[in-house]
């Protein structure tokens, strides 16, 4: 084990070109381990000698040794250490750190823990955001840093900061836990921003992700999923075919109250729903869903007004108030006005005689913007379709799949048809 000075000298010397960096990497791997951590306290002054951009790999190793050394980080002047880590994350070079991804992830986690311990989640947001971008090999990859980053955004109530990460479509996932956490936190951020359709999408992903055993994140996600789908659609759809079997069987048992809430919602009576919510507010509170449940209540009005548009062409405000069980026509007018502004219904309010007339969707599809809109959707769909086709092909060659289908056929026929020769794996012959 080389002495620290020699190691630092190596780092400084060998950080030029990619070959040197690879050489450095192997050196560092040798030097890595508990021995480095044991010297953790001594490492800090050395860090000052190294620059995060050019010596990213070496810096990373030393930093990680310090960070995971287990000793109290306040020894290093906790606040300063945080700044060090943050500075490193912002300044490091992406190519070099990709050589040691797990160490990088460790450093990020330490940052997050620190920040949460200090109760200042907002300090971790900017560095983690750059960290996410740097460790991703492509914008479609999901990393553990995503989940941590979203958690910090939630705690700091900086929902907009989370948006930039959430907008990317994810196609590659390494760890299932990352996916669950990402979808759950992402859904919560969208709820915070009141973008319920997107929240619904993410929570749906969390609920229908493949899982061999039911996990707690999925159950929590399901509870919120029920509430958000009530707000958006007015009903909770049944489990699609790609939900895992374990989820289908046991999910509803864990979310009893929510299922009952959805049934009473579908009855359409505001007062019933209100009494139910009051009765069970303790449960909702413990799940931290009370705010969401209150939004479900208010969405009940919207649902009923929307139902009215399908029956009537014009309606007076008193009638609306009466059928939707609002107290006064004033309330009804406010609700309708808000809905018109949000674009949820198309109507005009005639203030003179208090009549509301409902219209059809005025979109005529004759603008150039619509052309571009549809065109971009088609492009996205083409790209998605290509991806799906390639995944489908991979799936067809998957040995697990072939074994199951080949087995079926073998059972049914007893002997192998020569017609099936192509799809049955050769080992059966």
């Amino acid at each position, binding site marked *: 084990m080389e002495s620290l000075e020699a190691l630092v000298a190596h780092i400084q010397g060998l950080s030029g070109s990619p070959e040197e960096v690879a050489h450095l990497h192997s050196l560092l791997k040798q030097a890595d381990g508990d021995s480095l951590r044991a010297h953790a306290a001594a490492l800090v002054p050395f860090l000052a000698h190294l620059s995060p951009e050019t010596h990213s790999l070496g810096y990373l190793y030393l930093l990680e040794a310090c960070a995971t050394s287990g000793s109290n980080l306040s020894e290093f002047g906790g606040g300063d250490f945080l700044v060090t880590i943050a500075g490193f994350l912002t300044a490091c070079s992406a190519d070099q750190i990709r050589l040691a991804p797990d160490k990088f992830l460790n450093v990020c986690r330490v940052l997050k823990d620190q920040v949460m311990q200090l109760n200042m989640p907002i300090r971790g947001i900017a560095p983690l955001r750059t960290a996410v971008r740097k460790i991703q090999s492509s914008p479609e990859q999901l990393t553990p840093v995503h989940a941590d980053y979203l958690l910090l955004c939630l705690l700091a109530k900086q929902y907009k900061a989370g948006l930039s990460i959430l907008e990317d479509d994810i196609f590659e996932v390494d760890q299932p836990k990352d996916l669950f956490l990402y979808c759950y936190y992402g859904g919560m951020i969208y709820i915070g921003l009141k973008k319920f359709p997107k929240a619904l999408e993410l929570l749906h992903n969390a609920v229908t992700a*493949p899982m061999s055993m039911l996990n707690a994140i999925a159950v929590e996600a399901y509870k919120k999923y029920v509430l958000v789908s009530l707000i958006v659609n007015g009903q909770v759809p049944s489990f699609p*075919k*790609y939900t*895992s*079997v374990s989820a289908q069987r046991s999910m509803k048992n864990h979310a009893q109250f929510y299922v009952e809430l959805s049934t009473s919602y579908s009855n359409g009576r505001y007062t019933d729903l209100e009494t139910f919510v009051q009765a069970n507010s303790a449960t909702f509170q413990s799940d931290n869903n009370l705010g969401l449940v209150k939004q479900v209540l208010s969405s009940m009005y919207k649902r009923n007004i929307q139902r009215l548009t399908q029956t009537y062409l014009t309606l007076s405000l008193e009638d609306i108030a009466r059928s939707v069980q609002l107290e006064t026509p004033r309330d009804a007018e406010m609700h309708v006005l808000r809905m018109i502004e949000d674009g949820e219904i198309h109507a005009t309010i005639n203030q003179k005689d208090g009549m509301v007339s409902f219209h059809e969707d005025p979109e*005529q*599809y*004759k*603008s*150039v913007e*619509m*052309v571009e809109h*549809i*065109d971009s*959707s*088609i492009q996205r*769909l*083409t790209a*998605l*379709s290509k991806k*799906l*086709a390639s*995944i*489908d092909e991979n*799936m*067809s060659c*998957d040995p*697990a*799949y072939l*074994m*199951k*289908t080949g*087995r*079926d056929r073998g*059972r*049914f026929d007893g002997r192998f048809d020569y017609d099936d020769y192509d799809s049955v794996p050769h080992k059966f012959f």
Partner: protein
Amino acid sequence: MSAPSDAAPAVSAPAPTTTAAASSGGFTFKLHPLVIVNVSDHHTRVKAQAACSGDSSSSSSAAGAGAGAGQPPRVFGCVIGVQRGRTVEIFNSFELVLDPVSGTLDRAFLEKKQELYKKVFPDFYVLGWYSTGSDVHDTDMQIHKALMDVNESPVYLLLNPTINLSQKDLPVTIYESELHVIDGSPQLIFVRSNYTIETVEAERISVDHVAHLKPSDGGSAATQLAAHLTGIHSAIKMLNSRVRVIHQYLVAMQKGDIPVDNSLLRQVSSLVRRLPAMESQKFQDDFLMEYNDTLLMTYLAMFTNCSSTMNELVEKINTSYERPTTRRGGRGAFM
């Protein structure tokens, strides 16, 4: 010669090949597609009949004149049409019987046929004869000379049935006979002539119909929609290339590489001024609405396609990775 020795009278007009036309006669040949279809039909029929009637007989008779081992039998026939001045227009054709032994045409048959056709088409004369094969045979000159008493300068139309399908030119050549001095003695030899294809409206429709029945590039465009779209695509491609030619020409003229031609410029400017045909708000609205409709339909089609792929994928994943609760057939669960 193998059994079917009918000479299919297909005097097809010579394809406008790019090789130098040796003909100096100055005749302009116009060929109708009907003739080409007739010849190819005759040839195909004969070939099919020969194949059916037994390989042994055809192989033994393959040693006969004209056929050649392993080659499809040659067919012969007569072509008829109109000759006006220097323009020879070949309208129709009929089949002839060739005597396999002597290699001469059956005159009686020829005359009978001629008479019948005269009744229906009084204007048409026998202009020459046709045959199939890859190149001119030596025996052909005899037949050609034999026909010279019917028409003093007959044409010989040759259809090459072994042509590569990917080639774009018609495998049809028209030969005339000319007196050339070779080795001191005057001889009749075949010289190639150029021709053009001339169609009547009825012919165009039927050729179109036949062309679309069978996909020309190996059956890739199996559906009508795909064929239609391919047609539109090639039309647009051609339009694009023509416009590009004009554009290049104008650019060159602007740079000064080509001398300025005012009459051409006037034509181009009148062409340009014809567009856009319409420019009103209502037109824009309707046009965009229709455009959006088509886009929406495409979107819907893609959506359906994508959903079906997704569905299949989900099925596959479910069969391979999910512990089944109930299975069709049920036996898999016991494994």
